[in-house]
């Protein structure tokens, strides 16, 4: 059986489905008897999801789609040089 260290070390491969069917079976044998690794896997997945969402504007956020006017001018002026 895999150890916790091995499961955690290769967790990204498992979480993203980049394992062979045989490796998947070995991971799942361990996860079936190790609540700590299941907790680690779940909180790892939540971490990835929170990271992905943290920089996306919420629907209620103010519109930040304008570019500072002086930067627009600087870029366009530099193009003409």
């Amino acid at each position, binding site marked *: 059986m895999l150890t916790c*260290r091995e499961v955690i070390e290769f967790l990204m491969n498992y979480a993203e489905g980049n394992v062979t069917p045989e490796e998947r079976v070995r991971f799942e044998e361990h996860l079936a008897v190790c609540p700590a690794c299941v907790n680690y896997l779940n909180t790892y997945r939540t*971490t990835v999801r929170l990271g992905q969402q943290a920089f996306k504007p919420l629907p209620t956020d103010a519109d930040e789609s304008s570019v500072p006017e002086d930067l627009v001018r600087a870029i*366009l002026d530099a193009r003409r040089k």
Partner: protein
Amino acid sequence: MSDLQVTPNTHADDAAYLAALRSGDDTAYELLVRQHGARLIAVARRLLQNDEDARDAVQDAFLSAFKSLHQFDGQCSLSTWLHRISVNSALMKLRSRKRRPEQNIDDLLPQFVADGHAAEPATAWDQTADSLAEQRELRKVVRENIERLPELYRTVLLLRDIEELSTDETARLLGVTLTAVNTRLHRARQALRTRLDAHFRGHEPC
């Protein structure tokens, strides 16, 4: 005076827009900067963590894009193309900067005892990812903790998880192997998990 009136939003609009740019239409250039500038500044700011450097990187990116318009082959959208150029420009600026003192990533990775068991078994978080992701204060905590990751790891996490670049493209932009990208991404996510775990449990990691 340009007759370009529609701000391009889709890949299908790119051809007419590109023709206007290639013909040197000043209005088309201004539209390009106004439409994409804010998003590209946000990308550069995430990587550089500094407004002035982000503006410089975006200016360099636009000037580089203007010079390479003839090389744009339409295999991706103009938006995607500009995004890639801006990421590259920000990474070049990042490489030219002096690195700040940083915490060793090993302090934030899980520890194991001799038989391979976790030294500190993980516990569950109370709320689901969906409910957590919508909490404004937590979003700020997550951003701050990503910003505090050592640069080597933060950069890979930003490129892969936030900017959604492929492993191949991330490796190419950083000049490292695919294995190095995957290793750094996994460690960055683990380090962020450690910090968030401490946040949820109400104490700072060592």
